[in-house]
Structure formats: C-alpha cells, structure tokens
C-alpha cells in the first residue's frame, strides 16, 4: 500500500503548509556566552507550525531542541531572528501558550495540592475561585486523575505527576501546547500511556502541539510532521510529513511498514549527522 511512496520531505520548508502558521520561527539564532567565548546553539532555524497540528522536533541530545522550545515559549530571547505567534512577534511568554516541562518533580509545587497547582495559573486569568476549581476538576478528569485533586504531587507516581503537569497546561486553555521532552523521565509503559493520552487530548481539544524529543519512535508515532534538527549550531535538517493513518495505536501503527520506513529515514538523518560531527 505505501511501499512505493517516497518519504515526502524537504530541506528548509518545502513541506511546510501554505496555510498561515499559528506559530513560526524565522531564521532563529541563539548563542550562549560560555566564559569568554560565544557558543552558538541555534544556527538559523525556521519552522512553521500550522494550527491544530502535532509537530515533533527531534534531534540528538544537546542539539539545542530545548533552547528552540524555550525561545518559542518566550522564555528565552533569541540572539537574532524572531518567533511569531499569529503573525505578532513574541517578546515574552504569550497567554495563548502553555508549557509542559520535562522535570515534573520540579515544575510542580510540592507544597500545594494537585488541584491548587492547577488553579494557581488561573488566578492570573481573573477567574473566580469556583470557576478555577471547576476547570481544575475538568482537566484532572481529562487526564484520568479525578480522584487525586487533594493529594500532594509527590504522593503520586512520576507518570501521574506528569499528567498533573499536562492537566495544569490544559486548564490554562492554550491554543498552543509546548512540551519539552515530557516523557523522558518515565518508564516505557507509562510513556506509551502518556503518548496516547496526549494524542487523545489533542484530538479532543484541537490544541496545537509542539513536542521536543530525542526519541525517534516517539516523534514518528505522535506527529503529523517531524522536524529533524541537526548540526552544531543546530539547523533544520529536514521536515517530514508523517502520512500514517489516525488514530494511532501503539501496536497496529508501529507494525506498519510505513512506520518503519519513516523511522529509518529519521534515524538515517540523525546518524549521518553524528558521523559528520565525529569525523
């Protein structure tokens, strides 16, 4: 069925959709000052994210993926280039964007109950206490933790804590959800569960998701498009359209020949890059 179809891909954005992007980076450069030297991390990254799509950014560890995501979240100022949200430059964290961080144990507040962790960002939105509570309860139900509202985060398992962090992001009602290696610190089974959870939430709420990962299987399994980052400083190596049927399934999707092809393609790109760096 799909064996003859080549991997649809391009260098620097031919696979980008022609629809106006909801969030976009234009020629993003970022360097860190290390001692007296300037270490370039991002070397001109241009990415367009379409509304309602699931975009995965994959690349080797230390490739500046998190730096890119933090720039997109408005948490980090790029050295040059711009991040545009609905066409407007992002100067500081936009209210339409929510972030899920990798380290759930540090991104949740240990002195607050699960429900209050979710309610805290809603205070800034001027919601009444009742409404805050309602939204927190809805978000907890959406991630399957209805019963845990009054527990402290540290009383939950790692996977459950990351669900709380996802619930906090959902309750914030963002248009764009940015996730920085969100499943990197949980075990394999929990990871698969969380992947399916986030796919389900995305189709239910129609939120745009940008997820950074170093896991190739995860990127192909989750994404509508995969952006492969490589090099030092990092650039977009290729953007790949993932033409796998939806809804995805941990078993039946991953046995498709097409899944293997896409996976192999991404792996090849990253390997080539590694070889080039090593030599």
């Amino acid at each position, binding site marked *: 069925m799909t064996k003859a179809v080549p991997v649809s891909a391009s260098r620097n954005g031919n696979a980008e959709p022609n629809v106006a992007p909801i969030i976009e980076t234009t020629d993003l450069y970022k360097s860190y000052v290390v001692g007296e030297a300037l270490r370039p991390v991002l070397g001109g990254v241009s990415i367009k994210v379409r509304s309602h799509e699931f975009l995965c950014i994959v690349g080797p560890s230390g490739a500046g993926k998190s730096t890119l995501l933090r720039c997109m979240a408005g948490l980090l100022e790029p050295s040059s280039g711009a991040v545009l949200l609905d066409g407007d430059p992002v100067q500081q964290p936009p209210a339409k964007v*929510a972030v899920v961080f990798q380290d759930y144990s540090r991104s949740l507040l240990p*002195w607050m109950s699960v429900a209050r962790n979710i309610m805290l960002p809603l205070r*800034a939105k001027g919601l009444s206490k009742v409404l805050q509570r309602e939204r927190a309860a809805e978000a907890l139900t959406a991630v399957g933790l209805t019963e845990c509202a009054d527990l402290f985060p540290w009383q939950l398992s790692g996977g459950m804590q990351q669900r709380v962090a996802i619930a906090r992001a959902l309750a914030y009602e963002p248009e764009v959800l940015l996730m920085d290696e969100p499943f990197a610190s949980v075990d394999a089974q929990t990871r698969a569960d969380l992947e399916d959870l986030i796919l389900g939430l995305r189709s239910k709420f129609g939120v745009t998701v940008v997820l950074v990962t170093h896991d190739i299987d995860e990127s192909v399994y989750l994404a509508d498009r995969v952006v492969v980052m490589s090099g030092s400083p990092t650039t977009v190596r290729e953007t790949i359209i993932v033409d796998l049927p939806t809804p995805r399934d941990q078993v039946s999707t991953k046995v498709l020949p097409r899944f293997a092809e896409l996976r192999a393609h991404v792996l090849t790109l990253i390997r080539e890059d590694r070889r080039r760096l090593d030599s």
Partner: protein
Amino acid sequence: MPFVLVALWWFLSAGSTSLYFPPLARILSSVQHVWLAHRFSSDLVPSLENLAAGLLISTILGIAVGLLLGRLPVLSDAVTPVLEFLRAIPAVALLPAAVLLLGIGPDMRISVIVYGTIWPILLNTADGARSLDPILADVVAAYHIRPRDRLRSIILPAASPQIVAGVRTALSVGITTLILSEMIGSTSGIGYQILSAQQSFAVSDMWAGIVVLGIIGYLLNVAFRGLEAYVLRWHRGMRQLVGS
C-alpha cells in the same frame, strides 16, 4: 528515663541539709507556692509576654527584610557587610547601652530580644528566597503567575524550611536574651527573681525558678515542633518518601 532521674533526685535530695542543694520536695513546693501563685502574674506572665512580643516582631521583620534582601541582590550586596557587623555583636553585650537608652521597662527587653533573635530569621529567609529553582522561574513566567502569588505561593513556601529553622534558633536565643535582660536591667521577671533569690539566699526559690525556666523552654519547644509539623507537612512527607 526522665521519671527515673526525677525519682533519683527526689530520694537522694530528700534528707539534704545542704544550703545549696535543698530537697527536691522543697523546690517543688516553692514552684507551686511562689511561681504558680503570686509571681505567676507579676513575673511569669510578663516575662512570657515580652518573649512572645520580641519573637513576633523579629519573625515578621526578619521575614520581610529577608525576602527583600533575598530578592534584591543589589540591596543585599550593599547592606550585607553592615549586617554581618551588627550580627557579630551579641545582643547581651548591648544590654548596658539598651538600659541607658531605653530604661528598664519592657520596651528595652523586647528591643534587645528582637536584636538577638532577628538575625537567624532574617539571614535564613534571605538565603531561602535567593535561589528560585530555574524551572520554577520558567513556570512563573510561562503561566504569568502574578507577583503577589509568586511571593505568597512560591517564594515564601520554597523558603519555609529555612525560615522555620531560623525561628527555631531564634527561640532559644530569645529565652537566653530575655533572662539576661531581666537579670541586668529589671525589677521583675523570671531572670530577676532567680538572681534576687540567689542574692538573698532563698536557694530553693532560686532552684525553683530554674526548674520553671526549664519547663517553659521544654513546653515552647514542644509547641514549636507542633507548629513546624503543620507548616512543613509537605516537606516532611516529601523527604520521607524520598528516603524510603
């Protein structure tokens, strides 16, 4: 064990004719008839009131100034040398000067207690407030946490284990400072009564005062531990979990 020791003391001292070590029975009767009777309201209560006022002021002031210093590195850098100098002066060394300036009323004692107890609270608070976990800083920025929520719901609770440790230190410093201030510049209070009992050879009254002091210190510690267990219940629970 404590009961055994008290019993031992009771029986060993029962037949004592020594001027300096009266029988425990006499000390306890003095506790009952002197300290729990007329001196209860004339000395004991005012002493405790001064201690409470002093600790309350230094806790509030210490946390407020500590937060300010912790969050404003520029200010902290500017005043730290001065603070280090002031802190190095033991509060009790200031007693003569305090008597001169403020007289021998409760104002003087409260002031000296504040001076003695504010440092551990202030410095611990500044220390705890100084370093906000960078991930929490990202959370604060990404989710637009309001400044007052940031202070009340993030910075203060994050610093609370250190603040509580500071207050615990302040408690024992406070008792010491109180007693000494009463011995040096006062006409009432536990410290004054212990000293004047000693000077008038009312030895069992003196010992009784010391016993009362011990009991007060013990009870304050128990009460504080209860408060700590409540305020830091998340911290304790988390640590137990990590340790297990």
